[in-house]
Structure formats: C-alpha cells, structure tokens
C-alpha cells in the first residue's frame, strides 16, 4: 500500500520470516514513508519485533532465523548480494525495548558508533561536537553535560533510554527503528520520549513498535496492525483508530481482545 505524494524510504514486499520451522511473518508488504512516524501495533507474539528487526537485518544474528521476500532501502535491496548487514545497520539505526547502554561512560557510549564506523579518524576535534549534537538531539545534553565521563549506569532508566537514542543518532542513520522503547519507562519518561519522537521525524524516518494503542495514536502518522504474523491493516493512524476497515482491527482497537 503506498500513499501517493509521499517519498518512500523503505519498501517491504512479500516478507516471510521463519524461526526454524515456525513462521513468524506471513507475506507482509508495507511501505515506510520518509520523515514520518510509522507505528506497528498488535497483540503479543504477533511478529512486531520480528518485522522491524528485518528492516536492519538484526535477525541475521538470531540462529535459525530465515528471511524471504524483498526489502529495499531507497531502492536498494538490503538483502542483496553485495550489501553487507553492517552497512545496512549503519543506515538504519535501532533503539530497544529495554535501554541497553554499554558499561562505559556516557561519552564513550555515544562515541562507540563513531569509532567503530571510523567516522572520527580524521578530525578528532569534531568528536566532542558530534557527541554534543547527538545528546542535544536526544534532549539529554543539558542533563548530562557536566558528567560525560561518569558511567552510563548512573543515569535513570529514562535517561538511559535517551542515551541509547543519542547513540543511535550519533552515526546519523537515515531510519531509526524503535522496538517498544517506552515499555520499561514511567509515564513522565514516556512523555519525554514521545515528544522527542515528534521532533526527530523532521530529520529521520521513524518506525516504532508499541504494545500500547494509545501510544501509537499519540505519536504516529501511519499505523500497521499485525495479528498472528500477518499484517491485517495499514493506513493513516487517524483512520485505523476511527474507521478501521477490518473487523479484527476494530476488535483490537476497541479492546475486544488483547
């Protein structure tokens, strides 16, 4: 389903994913539009995480996972023969359900991606600037600027999550995937992250998985509803929540199950 007039960032066609013998995704096709927030909702185990992890080939590291179908990023097949997963992940960043900073300092957490991608070899002077910018973009700079060298674990969970976002932003990906980024957070931290998501979409394309319909309604422009590995419905968020076309979507968004 493409919505005309919008630039397509990622195009997913006939995606099937298997874990060993069990099929986790069945024939999913979906277009992710540039500079929009796309939400993926659905009951637990429906394949939301599986889906977004195919977008940056994070499923590669799961033994036994097998991906069929075609996914293009800016027209290029990310599972193509001469494309490396490493490169894909550099362009498509990811933030996880539980904040997972490295056991390093705040500074080194953000610097990590820059270092391993060799982005700071030439002018090392710019390193600090880039880190400041990333932290500022993640709305964390003011809270941590005086203690960049303390351990990331000394931050609150909400701050840790924003640190993870800053870390993802630092390498300037084109797309950022969020897998239930707020499920471990309290309401206030959640609100901060949601604000941030709205800010980020001017620069990045965003895909977010959430188990909270309310959150999807609050932050996303488009929503896809998944059920038992299938994508049941995909469309503008406002329409999905007010005029769902599919009975199952309606049952779900009105709370009849889940």
């Amino acid at each position, binding site marked *: 389903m493409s919505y005309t007039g919008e630039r397509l960032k990622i195009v997913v066609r006939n995606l099937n994913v298997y874990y060993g013998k069990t099929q986790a995704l069945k024939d999913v096709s979906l277009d992710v539009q540039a500079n929009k927030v796309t939400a993926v909702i659905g009951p637990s185990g429906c394949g939301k995480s599986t889906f977004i992890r195919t977008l940056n080939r994070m*499923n*590669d590291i799961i*033994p036994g996972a097998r991906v*069929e179908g*075609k996914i293009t990023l800016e027209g290029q097949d990310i*599972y193509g023969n001469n494309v*490396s997963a490493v490169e894909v992940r550099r362009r498509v960043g990811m933030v996880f359900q539980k904040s997972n900073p490295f056991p390093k300092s705040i500074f080194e957490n953000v610097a990590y991606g820059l270092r391993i991608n060799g982005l700071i070899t030439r002018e090392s002077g710019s390193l600090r600037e880039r880190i400041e910018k990333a932290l500022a973009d993640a709305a964390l700079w003011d809270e941590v600027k005086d203690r960049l060298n303390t351990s990331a674990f000394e931050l609150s969970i909400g701050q840790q999550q924003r640190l993870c976002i800053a870390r993802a932003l630092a390498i300037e990906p084109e797309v950022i995937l969020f897998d239930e980024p707020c499920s471990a957070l309290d309401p206030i931290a959640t609100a901060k992250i949601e604000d941030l998501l709205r800010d980020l979409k001017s620069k990045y394309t965003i895909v977010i998985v959430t188990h909270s319909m309310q959150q999807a309604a609050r932050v996303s422009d488009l929503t896809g509803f998944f059920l038992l590995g299938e994508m049941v419905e995909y469309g503008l968020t406002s329409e999905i929540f007010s005029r769902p076309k599919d009975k199952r979507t309606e049952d779900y968004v009105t709370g009849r199950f889940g």
Partner: protein
Amino acid sequence: MIWRAVWTSHGPPSYFIKGPKGMKFMPCSYREWVIERLLIAAAMVSVVIIAFIIITIFRTGLPLIAEVGLFDFLFGMHWRPGHEIFGIFPMMIGTLLVTLLSMLISVPLGVLAATFLAEVAPDVIRNILRPVIELLAGIPSVVYGFVGVIVLVPFIRTYFGPPGFSLLAGSIVLAIMALPIIITISEDAICAVPKSYKEASFALGATHWQTIKNVILPAARSGILAGVVLGSGRAIGETMAAIMVLGNIPAIPDSVLDPIRTLTANVALEMAYAPHGPHRQALFATGIVLFVAISILVVISNRLRRGQQL
C-alpha cells in the same frame, strides 16, 4: 521472490560475496574471516589434544593387548610384569569396588547436601558452605592422600586390624574427593528446575519437603545423575590418593579391610620402573582401559545433562 539465507553459521559465509565470477573478498570482511579461522583453530585444540592422547596411548598399548589377547589382558588374574604375565582383572575389580563404595558414601551425603544448599539452608550457611565446597574441590589430591595416610590408615589399623591401607580407607578418601563434584552439579541441577514448578506445588498446599521430593528432585534427576557419574569418574581417575592409602596389592580383596590396587595406581606405581619393553606397553594398555572406561562415563554424563535441558 528472493531467497536469502540469513545468518546460519554453516550456511554460506556472509563475508564472501558470491559474484558471478565466484568468490571474492570484501576488504573489511577479510579481517573478520581471518579472525574466525584463528578462533576455530584455537577451539580445535582440545579435540587435537584428545586425538594425540588417543594416538599416543593406543599406539604404545595396543600391540601388547594384541599379543596377550584382549580377554587374557582384561580377565587375567595375575600381574607379574617381571615374568611378562599381564592380567588386570584384580585391578579392574579394585577400581570398581573402590568406586562403588565411595559412591555409596558420597552420593546420599552429596545429594542431601546439595538439596540443603539449594533449598533449605539460610543465606548465612549457604554463603559459608558454597566457598567451603569450592575449597574442598580445589584441595590437591595429595593432601587428601596425606591426611588419609596420617589419620585414616592408622585409625583403621588400630580399630579394625592391620594393615590399615585398605579398600575402606580408599573409599572414604575418594568419597570425600568426589563430594564437591556431586554437590555442585546436583545443586546446579536443582537450581535449574524452573521456579514455576516450585511455585505451582506450593500453591497447591504442598509442604517444602513434599515439593522437593515430588517435584524438584524428579525434575533434577538427570542432572543429579550426571553429577554422580562425574563423581565416579573422579573416583576412578584419582591416582595419588589411591596409591597412598590403598596398599597396592594386585589381588581381589576378601573384605573392605584388604588392600587393593586400582588401574591408575598400577600405572603410577610402575611407570618409573618400566621404561621400555612389554612392561611399559602393559601400563599404556592399562591406560587404554582406563581411558575407555572414563570416556564411556563422560558420554553418559553428557547425555544425562542434555536430558535435563527440556
């Protein structure tokens, strides 16, 4: 529809780019490729060592078994290397007896202690006992043997009659040495039983002991058995302590107070005196028997431990 095998370790290595003209390297992946090969090489070292052990020992020992005959070697009642008579049956029996007897002592004690540690002990005791058991495992076997010689052997000689160096002394010493293994592996197995079983049982109004007896121990059974098997492996394989307290007579004992000789002791006792010829070969052949026995135990315990990972 495009098919890509994603990461399966034995699928096509992802560092290769299969172009139309066959394989070519990607520059940054070349390093990854080399590193993986190096790691594989390191990982193969243990397998290589095993292979070397097998080759070395079998090469020296097998000709003798062939010459004496497997049956005569295994079931011969007499060991007289000076006369080139090589029968290890008494030693096999000795090893078997000392292992069984030591297990008889250590298994009940070990499993109960493991259950105690995992389920009953208050934190204070647990925090003392765990390191103690680790220490017990780390104490060199010569120290056990030494204490056996200084304390246990005279004790048995005085109260049960000479010579003191005996199957009984050996079994006690080996039992103590096997305890830490049995306890730690059993405790691991017990702790690995999903907490949900315990909760379910409690929620049905079971007492703690009922839960342990009916749910936890049965669920941990194969892990505990693996511990017992490994413990007997230690008893079979133990050398120094065995030599020190067992008396080393290659004969089938009439009572627990008689001395015996184990297979390991046979090798260690006479190796120095058998620098060549059939005697040395016979000791290597003893080593083969020991090796095969231990290997069987390793396989069994391996299977058992797999068994618990449902």
